[in-house]
């Protein structure tokens, strides 16, 4: 029987190898494969960008115990503010024609400020009420930009991709540039989250997640802590918004509508609400399926992207409430022999997973305590 320590170090080593391989592969991808391919221009760049927004959602959920439905609204707001500031001439909205870097800094700053305001309002709520308040923010943002023609109106602002800084260039003719920028920003956001959760602020955020009452009696200002975490997540989402605007070119109220809000939640749940890595995994699965599984027909139900992604979502939620990352954790637990709480027989482990899923379907208690994602 192997000790727990061995299991964890072996798992960690495997994860490092897998992550390293993937990073190298992604780093050389545009060089090896044609840089004009759909993968570089759309699937992977979108994965990096939208993955950042999903990471901001998972950060709040995993470390702050807050499931936010406002992350799409925040990245949409950032894209729309950027569009208003940076475009000129005949473009819709304010078309102020600011210099690209200044406009990006202002858009990120304004979005972060709005996130702090949202966070301050929502910071005294928890659980389903927090979810509803953040959903309200999303609906307000969507309605606001759909109704106020001064800022672009219903059809949104197009052509933002032609007002990028020189470093980014034109996304259509030089997709590899934005690919690498999105890749780099995604890595930075990931490392930022990993770093911040080990600082006093981050550890305290986890304390707020677990026991806000005790945190208060230890001397912490719980609503302030929640607000700042929400602001930080808003900052991350705004980076995603900039990358999104640069790659798609058009940001409209439809970018931040209810369907998109649900899409991001689906991405986060497929990837796994308990681990940050799940954000990009979920985003990749989402965009890959969106691209390739569009026209596959399901018997009886017919075929569409929504049908397929819906089935995958359902399967994930039932089998592994912590998403694909949770599935990975299950597999490594089996492969590397951490039998703590489990069993040493592969079939019994499988039976446990199936029976857990069955209990969850029936609404009973699973045999092993699962994560907060179930309280969703």
């Amino acid at each position: 029987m192997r000790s727990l320590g061995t299991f964890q170090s072996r798992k960690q080593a495997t994860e490092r190898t897998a992550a390293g391989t993937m990073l190298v592969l992604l780093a050389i991808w545009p060089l090896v494969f044609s840089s004009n391919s759909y993968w570089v221009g759309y699937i992977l760049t979108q994965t990096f960008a939208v993955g950042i927004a999903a990471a901001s959602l998972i950060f709040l959920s995993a470390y702050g115990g807050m499931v936010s439905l406002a992350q799409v609204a925040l990245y949409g707001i950032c894209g729309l503010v950027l569009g208003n500031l940076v475009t000129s001439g005949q473009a819709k909205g304010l078309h102020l024609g600011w210099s690209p870097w200044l406009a990006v800094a202002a858009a990120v700053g304004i979005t972060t400020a709005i996130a702090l305001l949202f966070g301050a309002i929502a910071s005294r709520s928890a659980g389903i009420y927090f979810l509803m308040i953040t959903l309200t923010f999303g609906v307000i943002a969507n309605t606001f930009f759909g109704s106020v023609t001064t800022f672009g109106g219903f059809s949104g602002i197009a052509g933002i991709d032609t007002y990028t800084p020189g470093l980014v260039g034109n996304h259509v003719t030089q997709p590899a540039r934005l690919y690498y920028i999105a890749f780099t920003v995604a890595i930075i956001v990931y490392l930022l989250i990993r770093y911040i959760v080990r600082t006093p602020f981050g550890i305290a955020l986890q304390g707020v997640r677990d026991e806000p009452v005790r945190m208060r009696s230890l001397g912490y200002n719980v609503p302030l802590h929640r607000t700042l975490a929400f602001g930080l997540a808003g900052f991350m989402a705004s980076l995603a918004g900039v990358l999104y605007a640069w790659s798609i070119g058009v940001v409209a109220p439809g970018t931040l509508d209810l369907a998109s809000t649900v899409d991001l939640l689906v991405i986060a749940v497929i990837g796994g609400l308990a681990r940050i890595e799940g954000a990009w995994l979920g985003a990749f699965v989402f965009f890959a399926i969106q691209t390739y599984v569009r026209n596959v027909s399901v018997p009886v139900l017919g075929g569409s992207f929504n049908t397929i992604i819906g089935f995958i979502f359902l399967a994930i939620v039932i089998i592994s409430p912590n998403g694909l990352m949770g599935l990975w954790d299950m597999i490594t637990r089996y492969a590397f022999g951490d039998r703590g709480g489990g069993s040493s027989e592969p079939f019994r482990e499988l039976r446990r997973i199936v029976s857990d899923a069955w209990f969850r379907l029936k609404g009973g208690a699973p045999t092993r305590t699962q994560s907060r994602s179930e309280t969703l």
Partner: protein
Amino acid sequence: MAAVPSPAATAEPTLRLRGVGRRFGGLYAVRDMSLSIAPGERRAILGPNGAGKTTLFNVISGDLLATSGSVELFGSDVTFMPARRRARLGLARTYQQSRLFLGLSVEDNIYLSIVGVKGGRLRPVGLPKRDGEIRERARNAARRAAIDHKLKEKVGSLSHGEHRQVGLALALAAEPRALMLDEPASGLSRGERNLLTDLLLGLDREITLLLIEHDMDVALRVAERVTMMHEGRVIVEGTPAEIRADQTVHDLYLGSGHRE
């Protein structure tokens, strides 16, 4: 109505309640309660279930605000002060339920307790030297509560008795001037109770200790004075010996029928 000042209360009392009440709708959980606790005093609050002991603790710690009367802590009026600021004044408490951070390690739990009082609560960067000092203090507190062999383990995986120890370590690590323990011995084995009693008896004499405890062996050994509560009021106050001999206390705990 008992507003009996403690004999030791010649100096400024650590805690003084004047006519404190806490009402939930039509129910008075605590009613017109006056209490004075001297620096360094060990005071036990006794009373049957529903007597209002925990509500009293919540009013003192700031988890609940008093609906009437005033609360003075370390000589200043804290009646409307939020709980977090009372904690920073040097008031620490434990809860009846563990209320620990189950997803964090024992060390991180204690670390949060120290940072909560010492400052740097919002610091978004790691400072290796400063964090190292805080962690060293956390380990010392864990040692005092005899839980230092599980520093790196997640609190969620520990037993009930160990939760009690971690809760105590959290309270001690903040180096409070006043410490309030809500039923620290509940659910502990006999051996664990003895360890707890020894730890409380060995506590720094400058720390004022306020204790809710149903276990008379623990409560009456540790406390110098005892306040007996019933239906939100103080009914008796005295030394452990006086409490042991008091007929009202016997009636409350055993029922007046036991005399016959």
